[in-house]
């Protein structure tokens, strides 16, 4: 039980939860990406919180956050690339209409 971490960790959890909700519930690819962004954001908050409260002297923690940011950027780039391709191909980025992409 370490109350000092609560504000950050609970925020992270909330963002994660919202992100999950968004990623699952949204029918539009772009909105879905937003959900994913929120999930990653939640993760970042936790990382920084742990770094700050537990291992402030090891920059590896911050390093990790940088990598997560990179992941966010990659995810957006690829996501939008796919979105444009889908939109051009079938004129829709709706999940319901992406059934043929099912494995």
């Amino acid at each position: 039980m370490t109350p000092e971490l609560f504000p950050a960790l609970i925020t992270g959890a909330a963002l994660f939860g919202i992100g999950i909700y968004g990623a699952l519930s949204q029918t539009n690819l772009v909105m879905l990406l937003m959900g994913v962004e929120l999930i990653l954001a939640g993760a970042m908050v936790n990382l920084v919180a742990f770094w700050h409260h537990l291992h402030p002297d090891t920059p590896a923690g911050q390093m990790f956050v940088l990598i997560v940011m990179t992941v966010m950027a990659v995810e957006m780039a690829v996501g939008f690339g796919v979105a444009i391709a889908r939109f051009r191909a079938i004129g829709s980025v709706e999940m319901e209409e992406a059934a043929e992409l099912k494995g």
Partner: protein
Amino acid sequence: MIVGARQGKLSGLRQLVAKAMARELTGFLVPGLDIAHAQGLDVEAAGVRLVASPRHASVLMVAGDISPALRNAAAIIYAQMARPRALLVLGAGGLSPLPSADVTSELSQPGLIDGIAQLRIAFAEGAFRPEVTDFDAPMLHVRVEYTCPMHPEVVQDEPGSCPKCGMTLEPREASANDVDSHPHETHDHHHESHDHQHEVHNHDHGSHSHHHEAHDHDDHESHSHQHEAEDHQAMDHSGMNHGDMDHGSMDHGDHGDHAFMSMIDVTKDLPRSSDGLPMDWIDVPFGPFFPGLPSGLLLTLTLDGDTVAGSSARTLTENVALPHHSALEPLSFVARLSNMEPLAPLAYRFLANQAMENAAGIEITTVTARGRVGALERERITSHLGWLALFGQQMGFGWLLRRAAALQLKFRHANEQAIMALKPDIESLIKRLRRTPLLKSRNAGIGRLVQDNALRGPVARAVGIDNDARSTDPVYTALGFKAISRDSGDSLARLQVRLDELRQSLALIDAAGTIELFEPANIGLATGAGEAFVETPRGAAHLRLTLEKGLVVTAQLETPSTHHLTLTDSLTKQQSLGDALLAVGSLDLSPWEIRQ
């Protein structure tokens, strides 16, 4: 006292503010800068800063008589201006539907200065008033009509259900003054563009009857949000109109809470952009008072993002065709023809003169002919300078705008000596333009035209066609005239041709050695048919008329701009917005010589 005053008592602090306003007048010019310059008005010098958006203007300046269509457009501009707003009228006749002028003055630079002085006083005293009257005009009213989301062709005035599919009809705004629809819409576009019809006269976008809104913000608050989206998704270049409409109607529809709607259905009817993405297009009006475009020209661009997908251009000057059956006195005929075109009155005056002289078989003396040449070339110089000013404004090149305008005003009534004295200024202007960076890259390859014998004047000569009426004119050939020609046919070439013609006209005036506007020769009671070509600044104009006992009974006029107007669509298609506007501007259209 100002009609468009702002509500409130003129208390101490407000007096200060009112004084500040009186000092800092910002003007919106109707019909436009080009006309103002051609009439010898220098608004900036008179101390009023001109602005591009009506929202930023405190004074609406109407210079000269304008057609009803232009007055309607001006009324919409006026309605968009923020209070306190004033109306300064310079020598205009009818104003309706505009409100009564706050200050009227004569159409001249002194008149302008005087009017502005009065205006400042009016502002200082009357910017705020306890009770204000709302400006209202027919074209500001928005009629609500009902249409079926699935069947755009179903439109009726009262709510109900669609005869085709039984859906509940959706309310939609339509303007009281319905303007003719555009030819080019795809089907989705068609009814969507109707939403925009009521903005079509509108220089600055989208605020019919804003004054109903603007003066009661609270009421506005209440429904701004429910409306919030409506235009956005008409505005942005992909609002899938069908989309929400379908869904909306499904909400009204009997069946329940959540119905899935396919985005494929929504987008499949949308026009495809050049990059293959289905996008929604919007019609945006440019003009009739758009900065950098010839005033009186209404250019409606169908924008696909920042790219022009289609366009339609027409003139709102409403110059009527010449009489066919009502006989006219020679002098009134001449006057009528030259008043028609404020940008090049002399050219048309000479056109009428020559035509009548030919019809009457009168030979004019060389002196007269040379005097006319001098005057015509001077007008060409002023006209080209006027175009340069407009061109500078359009490119955001302030120096060119001011310099060319200043020179134009100097040239307007200059005599030979004065013109020769101004020669170095022209030379330095041309030299400066040659040295200006970015100018080449801005114009090279823009608005490229192909050889086309219907082209006239500098536009034609920039493509390498020599159909200059002057090359066949003995008077000119005697003066050693040789037509200028470039071949690349783009905006840059047109600029260069006009610059060269500035030099050439100076040389011609020098050779002619005289500038005189002789009265038309007295044709007595002559009868006969005659025609004449005159190379107006915009190209060869052709007039054919017949006289009967000294009266002009029939006349047909061909003007260069009439054909050039039809070029706009091909010039703007698939260009980026800036290039499209520049291309249209580089044609140097004159809406005044176009008849409908």
